[in-house]
C-alpha cells in the first residue's frame, strides 16, 4: 500500500500531473532545506468531482489512506463544514487538484486560520492546478 508520503512524492505525479510536477515538488522541498521524508502528513486531499483527472487524483489519495473531500467548484462546504473546524485546532496540511479559484480562496483561508501557506502550485491542465498548503513553522 502506498504511504501518505509516497503519495505526495510519486503518486500524484505518476497519475495525473505533468512531468513538471515531479521536478517542481522535490526542488521546493529542497529549497526549504527539507528532504522528502520531512514532507508533512496531509490532513486532507481536495479534488473536484467534475473532472476525471481530479477524481483520479482523489481516488489515488484515498487508496493511499488519505482522507479526501470532493468539491464541485464551490469550496463553501469544504470550508464551513470541515476546514473551519480542523484549522481551529491548529495548522494542518492539505493538497489538491482543483480549478484556480478554489486554491485562490483556500490560500487566504489558510493564512487567516493560522500560519499556513501555499508551498507548491503548478498548472496541470488548462483549468486544473495542483497545490499544497502546509504549516509554516518559524522557530
Amino acid at each position: 500500500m502506498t504511504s501518505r508520503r509516497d503519495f505526495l512524492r510519486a503518486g500524484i505525479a505518476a497519475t495525473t500531473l505533468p512531468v513538471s510536477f515531479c521536478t517542481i515538488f522535490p526542488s521546493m522541498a529542497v529549497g526549504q532545506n527539507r528532504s522528502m521524508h520531512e514532507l508533512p502528513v496531509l490532513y486532507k486531499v481536495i479534488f473536484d468531482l467534475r473532472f476525471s483527472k481530479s477524481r483520479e487524483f482523489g481516488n489515488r489519495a484515498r487508496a493511499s489512506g488519505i482522507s479526501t473531500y470532493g468539491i464541485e467548484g464551490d469550496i463553501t462546504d469544504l470550508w464551513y463544514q470541515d476546514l473551519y473546524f480542523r484549522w481551529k485546532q491548529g495548522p494542518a496540511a492539505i493538497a489538491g487538484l482543483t480549478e484556480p479559484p478554489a486554491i485562490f480562496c483556500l490560500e487566504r483561508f489558510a493564512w487567516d486560520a493560522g500560519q499556513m501557506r501555499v508551498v507548491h502550485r503548478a498548472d496541470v491542465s488548462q483549468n486544473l492546478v495542483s497545490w499544497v498548503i502546509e504549516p509554516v513553522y518559524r522557530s
Partner: protein
Amino acid sequence: MATLPPGVSSADFSTALEQFAEAVGPDWVFSSDEDVALYRDAYSPFWGEEQELVASAAVSPTRVEEVQEVVRVANQYQIPLYPISTGKNLGYGGSAPSYSGSVVVDLKRMNRVLEINERNASCLVEPGVSYFDLYRAIQDQGAKLWIDCPDPGWGSPIGNSLDHGLGYTMNGYRDHFDAHCGMEVVLANGEVLRTGMGALPGSKTWQEYKYGFGPHIDGMFSQSNFGIVTKMGFWLAPEPEAFRTDSVKVYKYEDLIPLMDTVSYLVNSGIMNGRGTFGSPLTRNSAKDPALEELLSRPGGPDPRALERYAAENDVPYWTTDLRFYGLEKANDAHAEYAREKFSAIPGAKFEEGPRHRFPLTPEQQKTADHIVDFGIPNMTVFSGLAMQFRTSDNPNFGDLFYAAVIPKNGEAVFEAQRVFTEVASEFDLPLRFFSSLPSTWFPRAVVMLFSLPVSRNIEINKKTRAAFQRLVQVSEEHGWGEYRAAPAFQDLVMNAYSFNNNVLRRFHETVKDAIDPNGILSPGKSGIWPKRLRDA
C-alpha cells in the same frame, strides 16, 4: 525584506519589528518576503509595477492592549500602519496598504463574537470575526436572527461596514455601516475610545442606542484613517416567517422610468422591505440569437428602438424587476398584491409570482435556493462561477477593479448613465454590453452603477484599465455622480472629485488628521487623507 517604510532606517525598522514581536509574540510578526506577499492586493491594477502598493511587514495582535502597544511603537519610529480586519476587500484594494511600506496590522486574530443579544437583535464583534464566524455563532446559540452579508461572505462585518459595504436582505440591514451601533477605537495616540452609549461606563445600551450624547462621530472612523476599530456592534434582523419574490415584466424602453419609480415608492413607503432588482432579458438572451447579438453589439451602443422592435416581435420583455418581500406570509401576500396593482398602471406590464420560502430553510433548501445571501447565509459560490474561473486565470483578466458610481434612482438617470458610460467604453474598447447594464439597488434612494474593469498580470491591460477608470471618474464628476468606494490606488482621484468649495471636505479631514494623528502613522493616504508630513512632501 523588500520594502522599508519610507524615511525609516533599516536599523529603526528592525528595532520596531522586535518591539512589535514583544507586543504580540514573535510568531505573529511577518516580515519574510513569502509572508508579506500574502498581503499584496491580488487584484492590484499596478501588479508588478513600481507603483504597486505593498506592505513592508505585518503584525497580528490578539488583544486591544496589543494594538495599543503596536501604535505606541509605530509612533516612536514613525512607522505607517495599515489595519485590516480580514483583508478580503477584493476589487477595492484587498489587504494591501494605501501607502507602500506600511506595516499591515492584521486583526484576524481578534476574532471573538463577544455578544449575541436575541432579545434586542444585536451583536458585538471584533474585527477578525468573519461573516461565517458570526453566522455560525448565531446558529450555535440557536438564536432566531439573521446576519446580512456580502457575496462572497468571507469578509468581516467590521471591515465591510467600515468601507461602506452592502448586503442583500432587508432594508435597514443591507447598508452595513448604517446597521452598526457602537464602536471601540484605538486612536493614534494609543487611547481607547468608545462611541455612542459606550462612552458611558457600565452602559447597558451600547448596542441598542447609537448616538449617546453630543456629536455622533462614528462616521469619522469609516473609510478613514483616524483610528483602529477594535469592536463594533451591529443590529441583526429577527428571522422572518416567510419570503416571496415576484417579478414584473415591461416591454418598452421608457417603461424603465415608471418601473423604477414604482419600486422606489414601494421601498420608501415600507411596502416592500427587500431589494427591487432590475434586469433586461434582452442582454441575457443574446447568446441564443445572433440577430439580437448584432443589435446589442452595435458600435456606440444598442439602438433602443431597434431593441424595442425585437422585444415586441419576439415577446421578450425589455426590462424586468424582481421584487422581494420578507415577513409574515400573510403580510407578504398583501404587500405583493398591492404591488401588483401599482405596476398594472404600466401598459402591458406582466406580474409573475416567483418562489416562496418559509424559514428556517432546510439544508436541502439552502443548497437549491437561488442566491442564498438573500437569506443572510454566507457562501463562497461566486468564486465557482464560470466568469470567476475566467478571471482567476493568469490572462487576460485575473480579477476586478470595481468602479461604483452613485446615481439617482430613476429611469432617466439610468439612461443618461448608460449613454455616458457607453461612450467611455467605446473610447477604451471595453465591452459595450457591460456599460449598458442596469444599476445595483442596495440603497433606498440611490443606485450604484457598478462596473468591473479587468485587472491582469499583463501590464498593458492594467494600464488601459487605469486610464478607463480615471476617465470614468472624470465623466462621473462632470455629471454630478461620485464613487461611494474605491481602491486605494484611486482614492486621491475620487476624493478630489468631491471638490465643493475648494475641496473643503478634504481639507477638513486633513485638519482632523493632523490633530489626532500628528505623526501620521495610521493609513496615510486612505480616502485621499494624507498627514501633514506626507502632504507637504
